[in-house]
């Protein structure tokens, strides 16, 4: 047991594991279910140790059916539990799409608030692990386009822990995208207080700056920060906004930063057309176009399936972000 004060340095993966431990400890209605989550502790080991501690009744290895995982989680939630469902890779969320879009997202609304659906769907997302087509995608936009769902995408251990805890304690369904590429490489201070949470719907200024606003989320935030360090050496001061929460969006934080700098880049790994980067861009073009000194430039994955051998060409790196920054600075 860690002390209730101070912080501990840990990886993003450890922070997630700790969040699950603490919430299961705190509330016996919290249950975990998914493929390989119990005995095997998850293919990424995010649920390691949970079965040993909380037993097979609350940490459940399910058959291989995402539709069943989410469908069962919805039923559990209606009965009063707080299921945390794992989808092994976010690429495999699509067999559950009907349960998520037609049921989970609409249940509160269509029942006039009689039934609620506090299910948290945790799912590792994004590229950079040489996973090719089906172990690399960033499908967050599908869920952002589905009213009734909250969509979270933390980038630091602290936020990962704090947001996962908020999601589990909240009363809405949440799709929680975990940046698997940086599960083990990004470390950071995480508050020890088991009641530490991060509020849903608040962005984080990952780096303050005055020349250009770069908006991002998930693993890509680190790419943007790297770009910002490089730019600083060339005298360009980038503000990096880490959205953390895509839905609900911290509109104020986005508007304020964009108004302040007048130049905006939105960076995301997902394919370009109809991605969440487009939404941010459209929001700004509708709300504060008069403040903008340059086009709103999107840095994204290409409109192709996710490749294997050419992954490193496909994924936007810091230099691609810098190209966009250059474009908006020199417009």
């Amino acid at each position, binding site marked *: 047991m860690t002390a209730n004060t101070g912080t501990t340095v840990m990886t993003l993966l450890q922070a997630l594991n700790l969040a699950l431990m603490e919430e299961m400890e705190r509330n016996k209605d919290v249950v975990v279910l998914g493929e390989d989550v119990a005995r095997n502790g998850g293919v990424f080991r995010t649920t390691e140790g949970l079965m040993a501690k909380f037993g097979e009744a609350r940490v459940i290895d399910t058959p291989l059916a995402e539709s*069943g995982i989410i469908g069962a989680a919805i*039923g559990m939630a209606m*009965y009063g539990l707080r299921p945390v469902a794992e989808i092994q890779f976010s690429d495999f969320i699509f067999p559950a799409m009907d349960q998520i879009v037609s049921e989970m997202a609409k249940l509160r609304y269509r029942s006039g608030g009689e039934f609620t659906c506090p299910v948290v769907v945790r799912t590792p997302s994004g590229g950079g692990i040489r996973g090719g087509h089906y172990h690399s995608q960033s499908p967050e936009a599908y869920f952002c386009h589905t009213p009734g769902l909250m969509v979270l995408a933390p980038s630091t251990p602290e936020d990962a822990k704090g947001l996962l805890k908020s999601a589990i304690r909240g009363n809405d369904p949440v799709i929680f995208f975990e940046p698997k590429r940086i599960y083990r490489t990004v470390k950071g201070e995480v508050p020890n207080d088991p009641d530490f949470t991060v509020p849903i*719907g608040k962005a984080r200024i990952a780096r303050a700056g005055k020349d250009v606003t770069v908006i991002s989320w998930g693993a890509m935030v680190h790419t943007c920060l790297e770009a910002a360090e490089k730019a600083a050496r060339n005298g360009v001061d980038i503000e990096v906004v880490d959205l953390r929460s895509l839905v609900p969006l911290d509109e104020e934080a986005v508007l304020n930063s964009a108004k302040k700098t007048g130049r905006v880049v939105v960076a995301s790994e997902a394919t370009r057309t109809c991605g969440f980067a487009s939404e941010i861009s459209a929001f700004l073009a509708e709300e504060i176009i008069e403040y903008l000194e340059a086009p709103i430039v999107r840095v994204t994955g290409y409109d192709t399936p996710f490749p294997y051998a050419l992954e490193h060409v496909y994924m936007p790196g810091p230099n691609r972000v810098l190209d966009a920054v250059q474009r908006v600075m020199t417009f």
Partner: protein
Amino acid sequence: MPAELLGVFGTGGVTKKLPVPELGRDELLQLHRNMVRTRKLDERGMKLQRQGRIGFYVPSFGEEAAQIGSAAALKKNDWVSPSYRQQGVALVRGVNATEMLDNCFGNSGDAAKGRQMPVHYTFRSHNFISIGSPIGTQIAHATGVAMAMRIRGDANVCLTYLGDGATSSNDFHTGLNFAGVFKSPCVFVCINNQYAISLNVAGQSGSTTIADKARAYGMPGVRVDGNDVLAVYATTLAAVEAARQGDGPTLLELFSFRMGPHSSSDDPSRYRPKVEEDEWRAKDPIQRFEKWLLENKHMTAADMAAVHEQAETEMAEAAKLSETKEAPSKDSLFEDVYAAMPASLKRQQAALHAEGDAHAQDRNAAFPL
């Protein structure tokens, strides 16, 4: 060898006769009364639709025994995960007709706040889960509810209803498979009315019976004459109590017939022979039960007439009451999307208010279909 067809009345192709279940006279009359109420509610719903007073209706003509007999086997704390043809089940759970018709009118009295099409009910206090249109999804929910019951250690059961068409859905497979693995206290009641809109059950699956599908999930499959309310009651009760005692789930096939159209939008003459309908009209579950009640002297013809008349009045009055209630408020559009309204929705709501009544014309436009 395919599953046997079980029945108490012993007619209509039954291959194995069941004993009459132990039910007192009051209970028998209650079954009868609810079957008649269901019929009358459906007649009223269709009439309201034909008159243009409500936009849509889904009758359950012919499925009264299947609904009433099965729902009667549940206890108050048990749960129901219904599909959209379960108005009779709701009546047994204690919902009143006005609550249902409020939904059909989409008025401010509707628990779903007028947000769904008619017959998409939600009755939380009756443990009757909110109905959606997508076929099959409720099956997996039932399994989840039942898993939760076990995790909590509650001696409750979740019973779900599904059609023959729904047996083809993804969630039939996952719902039954999960329940089979976790031995969840769940009863899967398939009302095989032999049609999924225009598709006959023979085109729905290669399996000889629906009950036969249970074997794929390691659970018993039971096939029952679904127009025999006593057989439905007895077999459902056995399955429910087995589930309650930890013996796991059952798949129950209630073999019946959809006597009416799929919905008020449907015209069965396009796809099924009249003789089939005539044949099944002779097996009307209410008439069969009434015959048995008369023969066994539980009721007189006069008693029955009174029940019919009361139910008719009940439904007419419920409709009158529902029709007077006003529409949901514009603000309700934005509520209940989330527990708390996010900034984006507040802005959208404010924009709607800012429009004022300028757009009344848009809103009153007639819709073309």
